[in-house]
């Protein structure tokens, strides 16, 4: 499979509660350890990425939090301002447009504009160059909001290209959308769990990404995979009807075995459904300890190839 880190822009998404932010942080750690200059962009105002990386709280000022690992917290208001200033080039013009109570309310309400500002800022960093013309970052990771909104956000550049008349906004959205669709330059990393509902949602997400938006899915990360302990014959044997006295530790162990078999079967079925997708997969083990720690993130980073 094509290494993820060869792409300039990676969009990390998935249903709520699947460990998306943890995976984004682990990917950033991994790329930095490989010698890449990485930027991790986070859209959550109450970000917990810093806790996962073991660094002081992220701010809206982009900074190098670890060697080669840069991180920034993106808020819509600030991104909008930066975008405005970049385009309008003059402070006077900028103040007239943005330091105005009318326009502030307006910008906040135009559907999609704030989403574009956040995504657009991350995209801008992925095409940013240093003085010598080399790219400022090798990889930009975008830790997207959970599925529903993540998809809404990815739709925005497409909608802008369809609705907004030619101008700077449309030109930028077109450039970003073209780059997002190019599998050489960008990709979506979809994070999921080997369970029924997250799997269904992942299949739907994949469908929307590839058919509706035509965005390349670069990797499917299946988080929280348990090790199968019982063979099909043993599964069958354990599931046979029998009366257990669960107050006996031995019988409770058999009962635990049955519960495990049910989980393993759900997992097996989910993995089979996910295997039908034509996309490279990485399975990560369920951690039987606190997963929201820098140590756990390092552990996962080492497993992310």
């Amino acid at each position, binding site marked *: 499979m094509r290494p993820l880190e060869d792409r300039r822009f990676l969009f990390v998404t998935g249903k709520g509660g699947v460990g998306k932010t943890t995976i984004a942080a682990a990917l950033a750690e991994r790329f930095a350890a490989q010698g890449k200059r990485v930027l991790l962009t986070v859209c959550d105002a109450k970000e917990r990425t810093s806790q996962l990386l073991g660094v002081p709280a992220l701010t809206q000022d982009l900074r190098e939090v670890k060697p080669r690992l840069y991180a920034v917290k993106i808020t819509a208001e600030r991104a909008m301002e930066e975008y405005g200033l970049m385009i309008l080039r003059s402070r006077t013009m900028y103040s007239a447009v943005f330091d105005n109570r*009318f326009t502030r309310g307006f910008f906040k309400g135009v*559907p999609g504009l704030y989403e574009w500002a956040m995504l657009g800022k991350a995209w801008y960093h992925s095409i940013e160059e240093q003085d010598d013309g080399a790219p400022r970052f090798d990889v930009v990771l975008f830790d997207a909001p959970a599925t529903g909104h993540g998809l809404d956000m990815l739709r925005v550049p497409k909608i802008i290209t369809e609705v907004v008349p030619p101008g700077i906004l449309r030109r930028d959205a077109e450039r970003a959308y073209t780059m997002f669709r190019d599998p050489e330059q960008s990709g979506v990393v979809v994070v999921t769990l080997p369970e029924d509902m997250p799997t269904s949602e992942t299949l739907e997400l994949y469908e929307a990404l590839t058919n509706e938006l035509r965005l390349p899915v670069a990797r499917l990360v299946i988080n929280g995979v348990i090790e199968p302990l019982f063979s099909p014959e043993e599964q069958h044997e*354990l599931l046979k009807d029998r009366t257990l006295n669960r107050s006996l530790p031995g019988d409770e*162990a058999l009962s635990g075995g049955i519960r495990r078999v049910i989980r393993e079967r759900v997992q097996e079925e989910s993995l089979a459904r996910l295997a039908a997708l034509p996309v490279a997969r990485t399975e990560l083990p369920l951690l039987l300890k606190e997963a929201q720690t820098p140590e756990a993130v390092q552990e996962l980073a080492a497993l992310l190839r």
Partner: protein
Amino acid sequence: MSLPSLEPLIETRRVVLCVGCGGVGKTTVAAALALAAAQRGRRVLCLTIDPARRLANSLGLDRMTGEAQRVDEALFRQAGVQVRGELTLMMLDTKRTFDELVTRHASSREARDRILNNRLYQYVSTSLAGTQEYMAMEKLLAVQQDSSYDLIVLDTPPTSNALDFLDAPERITQAIDSAAMRWFIQAFESSGKFSLNLVAKSVALVLKGIGRLTGGGFLEQMAEFVTELNDLFGGFKSRAAQVAAAFRSPDFAYVLVTSPAPMAIREVLYFAERLSEQGMAQDAFVVNRLHRAPRSVATLTEAEDAIQRHGLTLGEGAAERLVRAVTEEQQLADLDRRHLATLQAALKSKQGEPTTQVLIPALPSDVHDIATLVGIAELLAPSARAA
């Protein structure tokens, strides 16, 4: 001592909102709550956002639609459940709700068609962040008037950020019916019809700046669209106020759903804070998907003995693997218990009187039959078996 129960909520309130971040099992909790109320004789509408197909199937529905679909009593009887009331399910259809809103309020057929065919409307009504949340509220207000239901249980959209749900109407109305919009519309009208000299210099500058950003004509298009919508609803702003008032009514109950995952707990605490800031009650917490601890963790000998006693034919090392299965269950349960303790400590320090808390164990597989749903309903609102 009685078990914590949501019974008082489902028996006395008009609307129960299940809120929480994505991936905590809100939809299942909402469906089980609705069932518990129906068992108690209420006529319940469960308005859900994104139901799992298997859950819908188990209730005898091929698929969920935007139509209200009553669950067949025969299914409950087959499952051995007594349901004295009625259970109706409906899925939120964002586009359809918006279209209905337009159709209901348009002053003429022409006005209606102008909006429904507007290109901006097509996007706003389908694929933009915030619209789903807003329409969930609109739908709720619409069904709230419907006297064929005693109780409405709403499963809120799976936002990554539970807060979006409350902010969505305000965010949209801010753009549509605000001083800003009126100011813009005026500015466009004057800049189009008169020479720029007549427009205040600052306005001209702003328009020029925005025009540079969006290209010519876009804001005019936007303004036109918004004017049209405004006409239609006689002011979105008053509507937003109406929505806001309804959501603070004592008829509404808020059930905060979380899983024991630290992220979900953080989100639910944050949301609880937002609710109290806005003068809304946090009526109950449901902690879903708690890993249950095994009753005991067997030794290797105990496991071997049990395999023999029950005459099981298992492969080599099976006893060891059985012990590992229960050991891992214990580890997951210990983690959850620790996370739950942080939630309970935070709630204790914030609240004078304790809020109802219900704990629901994790199941080895998803809920897809009536019996399991009834089991969850029983945990949410234990039936009084005394009589």
